[in-house]
């Protein structure tokens, strides 16, 4: 009677520890090792193992073992018949000596006999097999009693739940990984589409081939100089790539006119920001301001721009960035009616229009980026790639940028200030 009471107390303690173990934060292999120790220690079992079942591979894979030796199979295949039999057995232990007819036991029986494995316990959770336990002889030399088997069932239920939770986690991780890959693919598709659009826009204008791509790159430089996040910088680049999408609807002869266009043609051309906005608005861009950049990239902070003549704080910040990038590219590339201007001249133009056409802090950020590339050993020669080596090595470019920066010296821009200007 006292022995039975002690046995119960000992088993109860092991069960309590097992519940704690499977709901704790230890790693899965550690949980399995401890669970095996608890079941062995509660009944005095000399050796054993726990295997996780892979339904896909129809395989039991050993996840914890005690005293099974190096020759015990790490992975064991199951047949349909084995699985059916194990499922019908539920959690109740199968005595290996009574199950010799099962294909599984016929294949692996020798390994079990060698390590004196007496019981096979299928681990079933919600009518699905999630694993199995192999239990060796008892230290007492006695056969397993019905009490022992009940204890094994109770403990097996806990261990099965732990394996099932692990399976769920693996499934979640797999799905999260798939979603991540899908998102990356979609993102690549979006970026490629944006670039294809930029190329299509640029095809309309033989003199400004590559303009949209360059405006995208300059916008990217400005955003990165402002200390924006990776995603925000990408958004600025996309806004630059697509800022002229409205030009797709403008007559090619107007875009390519080798002369200064007249008022009527100018009115036609000046429709492109609004048209661009209409084109881009229905698209669900990952970056919110892309349509606004197209619509307002010809606005000036002194209110003399178009289409709406907005003033400084009313102009979306992204549109100010694209405006600077667009103007810089217009000045530094050959046009039908005008050749590209020299670097010092362009820098002087940016400075003199800072505060009227351009936001001063953007001119400063842009020139800082250029100055860093000119004077430091910057790995990424962004300006040189866009403007050419000769242009960037022109005499007087460094002092010109330096003077412009000394003269401008605006207050450093912060993202908080950007938000304030947008609100």
């Amino acid at each position: 009677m006292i022995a039975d009471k002690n046995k119960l107390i000992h088993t109860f303690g092991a069960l309590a520890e097992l519940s704690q173990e499977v709901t704790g934060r230890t790693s899965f292999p550690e949980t399995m090792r401890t669970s095996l120790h608890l079941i062995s220690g509660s009944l005095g079992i000399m050796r054993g193992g726990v295997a996780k079942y892979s339904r896909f591979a129809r395989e039991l894979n050993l996840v914890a073992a005690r005293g099974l030796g190096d020759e015990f199979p790490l992975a064991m295949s199951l047949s349909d018949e084995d699985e059916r039999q194990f499922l019908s057995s539920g959690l109740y232990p199968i005595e290996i000596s009574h199950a010799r007819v099962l294909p599984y036991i016929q294949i692996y029986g020798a390994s079990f006999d060698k390590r004196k494995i007496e019981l096979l316990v299928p681990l079933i959770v919600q009518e699905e097999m999630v694993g199995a336990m192999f239990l060796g002889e008892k230290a007492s030399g006695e056969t397993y009693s019905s009490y022992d088997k009940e204890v094994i069932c109770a403990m097996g239920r806990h261990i099965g739940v732990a394996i099932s939770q692990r399976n769920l986690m693996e499934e979640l991780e797999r799905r999260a990984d798939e979603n991540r890959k899908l998102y990356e693919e979609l993102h690549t598709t979006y970026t490629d589409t944006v670039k294809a659009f930029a190329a299509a826009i640029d095809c309309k204008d033989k003199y400004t081939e590559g303009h949209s791509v360059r405006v995208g790159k300059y916008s990217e430089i400005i955003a990165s100089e402002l200390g924006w996040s990776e995603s925000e910088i990408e958004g600025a680049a996309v806004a630059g790539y697509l800022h002229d999408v409205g030009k797709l609807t403008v007559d090619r002869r107007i875009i390519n006119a080798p002369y200064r266009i007249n008022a009527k043609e100018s009115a036609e051309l000046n429709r492109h920001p609004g048209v661009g906005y209409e084109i881009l608005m229905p698209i669900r861009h990952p970056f919110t301001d892309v349509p606004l950049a197209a619509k307002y990239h010809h606005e000036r902070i002194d209110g003399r721009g178009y289409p709406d003549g907005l003033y400084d704080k009313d102009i979306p910040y992204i549109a100010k960035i694209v405006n600077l990038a667009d103007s810089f590219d217009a000045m530094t590339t050959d046009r039908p009616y005008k050749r590209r201007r020299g670097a010092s001249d362009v820098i002087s133009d940016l400075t003199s229009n800072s505060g009227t056409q351009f936001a001063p802090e953007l001119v400063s950020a842009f020139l800082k980026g250029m100055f860093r590339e000119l004077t430091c050993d910057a790995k990424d020669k962004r300006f040189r790639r866009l403007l050419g080596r000769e242009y960037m090595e022109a005499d007087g470019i460094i002092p010109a940028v330096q003077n412009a920066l000394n003269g401008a010296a605006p207050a450093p821009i912060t993202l908080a200030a950007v938000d304030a200007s947008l609100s």
Partner: protein
Amino acid sequence: MPDLELGGPMAQPESSAVVSAGDYLNKLTGERVERECRDRLNSGCRNLVLDFGETEIVNSVGVSILLGVIDSAKGSGATVTLTGVNAPTIELFEMLGVTKHVDIT
């Protein structure tokens, strides 16, 4: 009597070694005991003495680890002796059949 205490020099092959089971033989202590016993057996020890003099409680993990040590010792042709085991622990070991595999002094 053991001729080498725990933590003693390992350069010479040991015929006998004493490993302390600590005050509470559980997962934490058990892993240390298991490691020390394995080292002793690997270095040639043929009579492993587990000192339970300070051990008040042994839980299920502790029993399992002890059975593992006994199994390893058997595989190496070594004997296991338990010393200083208190009455409740002896009762537990008898109930689980541990005493059939060890000498208790």
